[in-house]
């Protein structure tokens, strides 16, 4: 059954409703209604039939509007005669073919014989509720009256249909009366004010109408994303994690907290970060590429959005000591920075091997007053640094807050980190509206290690089905090389660092050591939200090798004058593997700047 959404009025709203792919959108050309349409129709898909609604208008007026707005259908809501319809149908003044929909208001005792003269002069009937005004009366008629429908002409069912009628519609669909029902027509029941439609309720309606299960990509109240997430922690950590779980949403909702968070993001971090149209890159790949410049944040990456949020959280919870883990040192620096800002003690755990290969970041952390503790166990990299930080927390349960740097760990960490990073997609929405006239791009793209920049980039688009989500993992030397970090391909469901997610492990359940040239993507697991996005197919996961990433980093430097972090370079390598349409809008999370990786670039390219 098709869907028509009628009474559209505002440009932005037209775009967001068009994104739900209805079959018809209705524009009312009748000045006596508050839904009277008097602006322009933005560019929308050709698959949506633009329908002009008229009440006893002159033929000339209708022709003019059809030609001006490139209407595909005309809906006649007044006492237009069969003769009028036949003239309209045959006039040569129309620049394009149109469908004619003739409206009849139905109530008990409706005489279907009135339809007969219209049989050959219109394409559809529309049955509405008989009310005081033509259309939009907001209540339904008794659909069983259609049992007496004598025609075979397809019709629109209209009049006060809302989300509460889903069951009634389904019952109706099963009845004989619906045999010729071609479409459902909705209007006022989906409005927040006349002419302004609520896209999320409409989406729910559409999903229910088509029996689509509405998938939830956010965390549920038990801390799971589908089957992933939860809090698999030893009892020793229970009080700490539970304290956080009980308080994080409450604290984040406090106006004072929000004010402080927003102010620091603005004055200290430098937000909003620009959304930059990458002209030369776009030309090269023949599509429209925008860069969300998280690399311009203070400390050079998105990481600080989260550490600012978490240190404010730690203060609210009365903590005096901060611990963190770090791989490449970016999260360690971002944590050391906010600890200096707040005058709090800071201990950063870092794998012994990473300390050796990331000397500049170790120095930065020390300058900022943090103590860097080497993780000497296991593989002496990020996963072991995380183990050490967790052990520290077990040993210091009362005064310490653990700032996890990615969208991983036991619930509520993945959700909390995602919410702090969600500022990224919140800004993309209004920035893209300013530049493209619409909030939703065709794709959002981010690189994924644990997945915090990705989580923030996707967050406000998770439930926008017209926005494609692309996640880029590190393939290292290649998926089958044994030296890789492509968790969505190589990982299996399991438990790491307190959550159930996809992780790289042996058959025996031992966690294996990943490999990537980029220390920030070198993690054996992936955040539980991303595991869910992968499993449900909501996100497309691509994996990019070291060499492709390095080349993409060099290309971005030369084309746009931006040297990206190697993590970020992985995301930019997708253009070599995936073709976008010329009018696609692709928003890339430029998660970090490449200063820290200069030595790697120098060594790789022998610069």
């Amino acid at each position, binding site marked *: 059954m098709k869907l028509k959404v009628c009474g559209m009025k505002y440009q932005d709203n037209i775009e967001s409703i068009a994104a739900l792919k209805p079959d018809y959108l209705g524009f009312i050309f009748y000045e006596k209604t508050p839904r009277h349409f008097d602006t322009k129709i933005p560019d929308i898909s050709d698959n949506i039939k633009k329908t002009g609604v008229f009440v006893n208008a002159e033929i000339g007026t209708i022709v003019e509007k059809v030609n001006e707005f490139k209407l595909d259908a005309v809906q006649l809501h007044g006492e237009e005669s069969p003769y009028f319809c036949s003239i309209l149908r045959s006039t040569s003044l129309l620049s394009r073919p149109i469908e004619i929909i003739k409206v009849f208001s139905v109530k008990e005792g409706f005489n279907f014989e009135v339809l007969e003269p219209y049989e050959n002069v219109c394409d559809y009937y529309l049955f509405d509720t008989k009310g005081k005004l033509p259309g939009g009366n907001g209540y339904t008629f008794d659909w069983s009256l259609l049992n007496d429908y004598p025609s075979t002409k397809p019709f629109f069912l209209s009049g006060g249909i809302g989300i509460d009628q889903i069951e009634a519609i389904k019952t109706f669909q099963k009845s004989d009366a619906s045999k010729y029902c071609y479409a459902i027509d909705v209007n006022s029941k989906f409005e927040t004010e006349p002419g302004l439609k609520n896209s999320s309720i409409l989406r729910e309606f559409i999903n229910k109408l088509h029996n689509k299960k509405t998938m939830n990509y956010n965390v549920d109240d038990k801390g799971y994303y589908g089957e992933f997430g939860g809090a698999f922690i*030893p009892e*020793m950590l229970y009080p700490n994690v539970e304290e956080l779980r009980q308080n994080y949403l409450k604290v984040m909702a406090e106006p004072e907290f929000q004010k402080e968070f927003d102010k620091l993001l603005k004055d200290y971090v430098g937000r909003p970060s620009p959304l930059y149209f990458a002209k030369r890159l776009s030309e090269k790949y023949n599509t429209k590429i925008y860069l969300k410049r998280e690399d311009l944040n203070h400390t050079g990456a998105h990481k600080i959005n989260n550490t600012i949020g978490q240190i404010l959280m730690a203060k609210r919870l009365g903590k005096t000591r901060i611990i963190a883990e770090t791989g490449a040192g970016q999260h360690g620096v971002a944590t050391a920075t906010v600890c200096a800002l707040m005058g709090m003690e800071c201990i950063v755990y870092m794998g012994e091997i990473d300390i050796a290969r990331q000397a500049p970041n170790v120095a930065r952390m020390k300058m900022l007053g943090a103590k860097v503790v080497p993780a000497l166990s296991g593989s002496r990299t990020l996963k072991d640094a995380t*183990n050490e930080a967790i052990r520290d927390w077990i040993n210091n349960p*009362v005064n310490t807050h653990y700032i996890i740097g990615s969208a991983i760990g036991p619930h509520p960490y993945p959700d909390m980190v995602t919410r702090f990073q969600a500022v990224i997609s919140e800004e993309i929405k209004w920035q893209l509206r300013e530049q493209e006239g619409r909030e939703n791009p065709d794709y959002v793209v981010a690189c994924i290690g644990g997945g915090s920049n990705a989580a923030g980039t996707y967050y406000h688009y998770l439930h926008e089905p017209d926005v494609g989500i692309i996640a880029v993992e590190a393939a290292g030397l290649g998926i089958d090389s044994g030296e890789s970090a492509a968790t969505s391909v190589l990982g299996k469901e399991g438990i*790491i660092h307190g959550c159930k997610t996809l992780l790289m492990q042996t058959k*025996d*359940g*031992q*966690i294996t050591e990943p490999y990537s040239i980029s220390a920030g993507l070198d993690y054996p697991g992936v955040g539980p939200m991303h595991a869910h996005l992968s499993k449900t197919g909501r996100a497309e996961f691509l994996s990019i090798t070291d060499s492709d990433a390095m080349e993409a980093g060099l290309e971005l430097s030369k084309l746009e004058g931006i040297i990206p972090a190697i993590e970020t370079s992985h995301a930019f390598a997708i253009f070599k593997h995936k073709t976008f349409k010329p009018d696609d809008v692709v928003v890339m999370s430029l998660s970090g700047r490449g200063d820290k990786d200069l030595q790697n670039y120098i060594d790789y390219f022998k610069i």
Partner: protein
Amino acid sequence: MNRINQKLQEDKKLLSIYFTAGYPEINDTVSIIQDLEKNGVDMIEIGLPFSDPLADGPTIQDSSTAALKNGMTTEVLFKQLEGIREMVSIPLIIMGYFNPMFQYGVEAFCKKCQELGIDGLIIPDLPVDVYHEKYQAIFEKYGLINVFLITPQTSDERIRYIDSISNGFIYMVSSASTTGAKSGFGEEQTAYFERIGNMNLNNPQVIGFGISNNETFTQATKYAKGAIIGSAFVKHVTKHGVDSIDTFTNSILNA
């Protein structure tokens, strides 16, 4: 009746020893178990090694890494334990992290434990709620006792909840810490031991973490039914090998 429950009914303070399976050598498992029983140990925790043992200190992290390097796996351990019940009769508990069991299949793991004569499991990172909701029925089907931990930070309410779900003993973690020896128990610990003792829980308590010698063993068992020694024993076999287990147990029990 489960061997653990039987043992808990004995009128004595219990010594339980943890060791890492596959350490120092891959095939030491059975001889360590036999020697521990022979030397008066009441209960044994067989450590199934894990790559990322979050709740453990450096000693057990290292022995686990070495055991994995030696080739220890869940399959290998089960193979080694075949016929163990013809050799020893004290309660045997497998202690390990959840992921290896999850990969083996929780039900298959429990079934195998029952076949081999394992009496219980300690899984530090399997939360009480998840156990209760998803796995309790399976554990009970195969006659396994699951042992939960409590710490000085655990609230009374939660201790009562854990007590209600337990059917063997409660593992009392002596202080806010990972495993590994501390220098004796201070006032804070003894106050906590007393507090728990006064709660009159349904399940007896066994104290672990930080017990390394006769002094700490005696102190702990003043308040609890027994005590568990892990890191100190692992250190002993690291230093002296597996032939002098009697020296270690004597130092605890007969000092």
